């Protein structure tokens, strides 16, 4: 076909040729000939091509049939040829005898060292490698360390030199020349070894490895082909070779080897999982490799022989005694312990491995920390600590044995329960706070919220303020489905402190002993205790399976909370009092905490949080600003601060800022549903409700058991007119046992569907529920519902009943809301006096910006201007916060309006609207424009509201009762165009808002 060189057939014609070829192939051979001859008749050019292709096809045979798999030898051609010839002299010193083989990064020769008059092995580094600075720096460092190792079981490194070849300089390493075979070859010939045969070899390997580790080197590439067996009489002497990145001796000269820097990483076959995953090589990864070598020695096979190297990340190896039935329990356990997927569970050093093979006693399975250096200095005291460790480990070893292979690792996003750390020293009572602050940084797990713990305690008929001890904690965890419990105790002695931490895995009922992992951290004094706490937290986090490679999530205690024990104590007490319901005491204690450490950012934030929840905005914002200033100096990334910051920005109307923070939050804690949840609501406020809905669904996906995103989704569905979806979401809420939330949203859905009977049922259910917050809301919802349907009297009654209820339960915030609602209704029906009283009543109960604004507005509208001015003066000025600014402008506008200063009123209202959230109704602006005669503007803002009743009705208790109907009435009165579809729809809907008997 291509024989006709100029015959380029492309594009559509080529496609046609392909089709014809396919058709021809589909034919059976006799048909094919016929097909072709027909084709020759019709389109001879095509026929030529097709025919040529068919011929090729037949001749091709197996050509390209299988994917390329290349023989090693083939790739060997990728190597450079041998660099040096026999008798060549390097560095004026080494005379090449012969090439022994090719190592990873160069070649290995036998050479004669003319200075020392000895035969040595000479390793040359390839040029590309030699010229890489980073590489050579590491190489040199390793060499320096390796040279210090003089041990019978380690191949000696003599010299490191550079040899000039023309303009290139290559690195040359001289080492002990070893004659013998590798362990790999030996095993190949022998098959497998008995434990008795293997033990002396194992001990030598261990000794060598210990020597290497002691010099500060990680071998990184321990395997049978790196272990030389040098004959020594009737026995073997093992020599460790090729450690670090010093290169390798080849096992077989004819065998090809590899390219360049891959040697740095070692062969996948013998790599520990964490090495494969993260490239981290530690003593533990050498231990893993050692385990593999031992495995191979006694079973004759590799544990992951059939599968790829990466399987070891997920799977456990087949226990060696299954493959070698005469293998003792010690060997089996030892090998399996070396092969633990989590580095912390393996032996902490090579010597322990050897001991485990010899001794009868089972090894403790707790990762025991090496003694801190400072305590080693005092030998006698050191002994005491060692004894304690041993006692603890012995005791736990017995338990540990039974649950040999369980792991405390939990999947990302799990909730853990942190109990109070028991301590007798009251000045250290803040340690739990500090620990929680540390653990809260984790992106891997979440700490169970205090509120939820309190709920469960109530179910257990315990008092919420009770300290959470270990056994209570286990039960709480079990009831809540929490798999991990972290507990600890702090004891002091003459020598300092001992922080004992325990992590328990709860699987069965609390009656069963839980699986325990324990560790002990010591500190000489209080200052050091904070560091120990940090280590303890790090230990817990890595135990739970966290990778711990993000320094942003690894801040020391000083930054996450404070370095002052006093401050921590006050903070801790404050939390306790708050949990008991005593907010005043909590505030006082926080002030004391801040006296102890004014830069305790978290305390400022907590203070701000509580103050704002009590609507003491002025002081609250102040505290927040202080915290913000502190935070700017250091980037606090703990989850709680991010949450509070974001919420604060949202509360104060800085939606863009809130988005930023939530974005950061989401990046740092990808499993947490809250940032998506918050973002969703912020987007809705910004008028981007579709996006908000998507975020909300994302939140649901991240936390399928959490109800807030589902509730928020339901509301968004209503707003976006996805009534069916809303119904589904509401149903899901009920399934999640949150029928109160479901009922409160259902009222809105029912109103949109004009199913008022169902709405009333929902309201009745809410009113009789056990949760006082929802009962309180039910009154407001009912009042709004009734007023939309035109029954002012009943609405007033509902609000009055609601106010009494709130008074009886001490809900001043909600009570104030009800008075505002009443004031609104009174205004609408023209009862100025009652409106005035209600508004003032509301103000005495709550003086936050929102209430001030609403009360002040109504006072202005009913003509009580001096009172309105008084209200205005209650608003903090120049806060720089959008919500407060809006309130100021809006109220000023109302006052100007009442004074008939229309121009000024419009100006103020426009400022208010600019500071307002995009999706909030701008009825206040509309009213003002109406007064100024700008009919068009009025209609626009009214229409926005009229067209979207769902926006109002999805949260009936957040708006004035009957708001939608009122605005619709206004709109109807003003809209000259009776054909306006929005008008028609609204009027139709309004007509439907009646209670049929």
């Amino acid at each position: 076909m291509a024989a006709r060189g100029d015959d380029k057939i492309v594009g559509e014609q080529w496609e046609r040729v392909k089709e014809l070829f396919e058709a021809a192939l589909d034919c059976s051979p006799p048909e094919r000939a016929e097909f072709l001859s027909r084709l020759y008749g019709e389109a001879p050019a095509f026929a030529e091509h097709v025919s040529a292709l068919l011929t090729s096809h037949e001749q091709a045979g197996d050509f390209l049939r299988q994917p390329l798999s290349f023989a090693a030898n083939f790739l060997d051609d990728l190597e450079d040829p041998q660099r040096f010839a026999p008798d060549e002299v390097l560095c004026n010193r080494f005379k090449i005898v012969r090439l022994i083989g090719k190592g990873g990064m160069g070649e290995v020769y036998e050479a004669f060292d003319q200075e020392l008059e000895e035969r040595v092995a000479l390793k040359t580094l390839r040029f590309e490698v030699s010229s890489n600075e980073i590489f050579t720096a590491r190489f040199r460092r390793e060499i320096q360390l390796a040279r210090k190792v003089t041990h019978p079981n380690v191949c000696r490194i003599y010299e490191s030199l550079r040899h000039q070849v023309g303009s290139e300089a290559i690195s040359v390493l001289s080492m002990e020349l070893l004659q013998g075979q590798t362990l790999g070859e030996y095993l190949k010939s022998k098959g497998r070894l008995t434990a008795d045969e293997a033990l002396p070899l194992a001990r030598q390997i261990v000794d060598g490895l210990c020597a290497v580790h002691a010099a500060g080197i990680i071998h990184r590439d321990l395997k049978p082909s790196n272990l030389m067996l040098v004959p020594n009489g009737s026995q073997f002497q093992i020599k460790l070779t090729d450690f670090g990145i010093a290169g390798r001796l080849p096992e077989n000269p004819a065998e090809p080897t590899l390219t360049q820097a891959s040697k740095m990483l070692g062969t996948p076959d013998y790599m520990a999982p964490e090495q494969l995953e993260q490239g981290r090589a530690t003593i533990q990864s050498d231990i893993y490799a050692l385990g593999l070598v031992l495995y191979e020695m006694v079973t004759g096979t590799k544990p992951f022989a059939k599968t790829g190297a990466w399987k070891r990340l997920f799977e456990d190896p087949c226990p060696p005694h299954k493959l070698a039935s005469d293998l003792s329990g010690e060997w089996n356990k030892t090998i399996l312990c070396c092969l633990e997927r989590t580095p912390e569970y393996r032996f902490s050093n090579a010597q322990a491995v050897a001991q485990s093979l010899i001794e009868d006693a089972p090894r403790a399975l707790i990762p025991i920390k090496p003694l801190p250096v400072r305590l080693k200095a005092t030998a006698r005291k050191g002994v005491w600590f060692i004894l304690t460790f041993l006692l603890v480990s012995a005791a736990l070893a017995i338990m540990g044995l039974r649950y040999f292979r369980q792991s405390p690792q939990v999947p990302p996003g799990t909730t853990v329960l942190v109990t109070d750390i028991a301590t007798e020293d009251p000045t250290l009572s803040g340690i739990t706070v500090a620990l929680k602050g540390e653990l809260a940084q984790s992106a891997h797990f979440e700490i169970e919220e205090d509120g939820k713990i309190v709920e469960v305690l109530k179910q257990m008929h315990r008092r919420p303020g009770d300290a959470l001890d270990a056994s209570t904690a286990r039960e709480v965890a079990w009831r809540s489905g929490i798999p991990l419990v972290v507990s600890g105790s702090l004891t002091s002695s003459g020598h300092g402190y001992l922080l004992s931490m325990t992590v328990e895995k709860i699987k069965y009922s609390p009656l069963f002993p839980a699986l325990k992992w324990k560790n002990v951290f010591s500190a000489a004094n209080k200052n050091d205790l904070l560091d120990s706490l940090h280590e303890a937290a790090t230990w817990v986090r890595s135990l739970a399976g966290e990778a711990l490679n993000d320094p942003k999530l690894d801040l020391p205690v000083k930054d996450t909370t404070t370095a002052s024990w006093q401050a921590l104590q006050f903070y801790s007490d404050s939390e306790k009092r708050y949990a008991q319901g005593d907010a005043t005491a909590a505030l006082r204690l926080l002030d004391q905490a801040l006296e102890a450490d004014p830069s305790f950012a978290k305390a400022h934030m907590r203070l701000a949080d509580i103050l704002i929840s009590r609507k003491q905005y002025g002081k609250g914002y102040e505290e927040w600003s202080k915290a913000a200033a502190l935070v700017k100096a250091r980037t606090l990334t703990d989850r709680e601060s991010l949450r509070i910051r974001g919420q604060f920005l949202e509360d104060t109307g800085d939606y863009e800022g809130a988005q930023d923070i939530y974005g950061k939050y989401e990046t740092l804690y990808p499993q947490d549903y809250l940032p998506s949840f918050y973002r969703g609501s912020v987007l809705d406020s910004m008028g981007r409700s579709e996006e908000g809905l998507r975020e909300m669904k994302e939140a649901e996906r991240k936390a399928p058991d959490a109800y807030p995103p589902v509730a928020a989704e339901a509301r968004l569905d209503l707003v976006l007119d996805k009534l069916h979806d809303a119904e589904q979401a509401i149903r899901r809420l009920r399934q999640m046992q949150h029928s109160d939330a479901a009922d409160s949203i259902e009222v809105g859905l029912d109103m949109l569907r004009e199913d008022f009977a169902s709405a009333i049922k929902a309201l009745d259910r809410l009113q009789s529920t056990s949760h006082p917050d929802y009962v309180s809301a039910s009154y407001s919802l009912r009042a709004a519902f009734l007023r939309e349907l035109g029954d002012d009297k009943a609405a007033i009654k509902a609000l009055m009943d609601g106010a009494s209820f709130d008074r009886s339960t001490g809900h001043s915030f909600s009570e104030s809301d009800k008075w505002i609602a009443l004031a609104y209704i009174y205004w609408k029906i023209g009862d100025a006096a009652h409106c005035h009283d209600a508004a003032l009543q509301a103000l005495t109960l709550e003086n936050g910006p929102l209430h001030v604004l609403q009360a002040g507005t109504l006072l202005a509208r009913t003509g009580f201007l001096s009172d309105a001015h008084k209200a205005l003066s209650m608003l903090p000025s120049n806060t720089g916060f959008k919500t407060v600014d809006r309130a100021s402008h809006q109220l000023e506008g109302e006052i100007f309006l009442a004074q008939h200063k229309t121009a000024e009123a419009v100006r103020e209202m426009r400022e208010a609207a600019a500071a307002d959230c995009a999706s909030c109704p701008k009825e206040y602006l509309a009213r003002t424009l109406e007064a100024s005669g700008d009919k068009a503007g009025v209609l626009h803002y009214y229409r926005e509201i009229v067209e979207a009743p769902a926006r109002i009705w999805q949260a009936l208790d957040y708006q004035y009762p009957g708001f939608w109907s009122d605005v619709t009435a206004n709109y109807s009165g003003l809209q000259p165009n009776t054909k306006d579809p929005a008008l028609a729809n609204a009027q139709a809907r309004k007509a439907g808002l009646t209670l049929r008997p």
Partner: protein
Amino acid sequence: MEPHTGEVTRLLCDLRSGKKEAEAQLFSLVYGELRRIAGSYLRRERPDHTLQPTALVNEAYLRLVEQTEQNWENRAHFLGIGAHLMRQILVDHARKRQADKRGGKKQLVTLDGLEVAAPGIQSPEDLIALDNALLKLESFDHRQSRIVELRFFGGLREEEISHLLGVSVRTIKRDWSVARAWLHAEMTK
């Protein structure tokens, strides 16, 4: 330099959403890794000493893409890139080999004859010829050339190729047959 695992994931995402620049960056990141692994695979003590490109690319994938980000879409894209890179690596070295031979560098150690890697591809010269032929094919049927690359160098199955390229399996099969025939003819000219 070792690529950060998140980087590769991000680039894969960029690639999927159509950012062409991501491709070049990914290539350079993955290239280094593939070469490393290619080499280390050779040290495996397998009696047949053969190497499957898919295994190699799989391993590169595992090492380069974070656990939590591994999904089949990423993997398919990655394999696709791997195939291309494998081809590049092998052909590059084949060409270098040829240059060396022509330059007459001293070879003091003679190696055993090559084992058959694939029928029709017996030597570096053959590999270069295939590459040239593929380049020619690419000039008028890019998809076919890509299919060959994915199948022969990457070891991807037809379903995987179909998904990656967004064409039906039937089209893949057809294009493959045609390409094979065409390449054979081209190489036996």
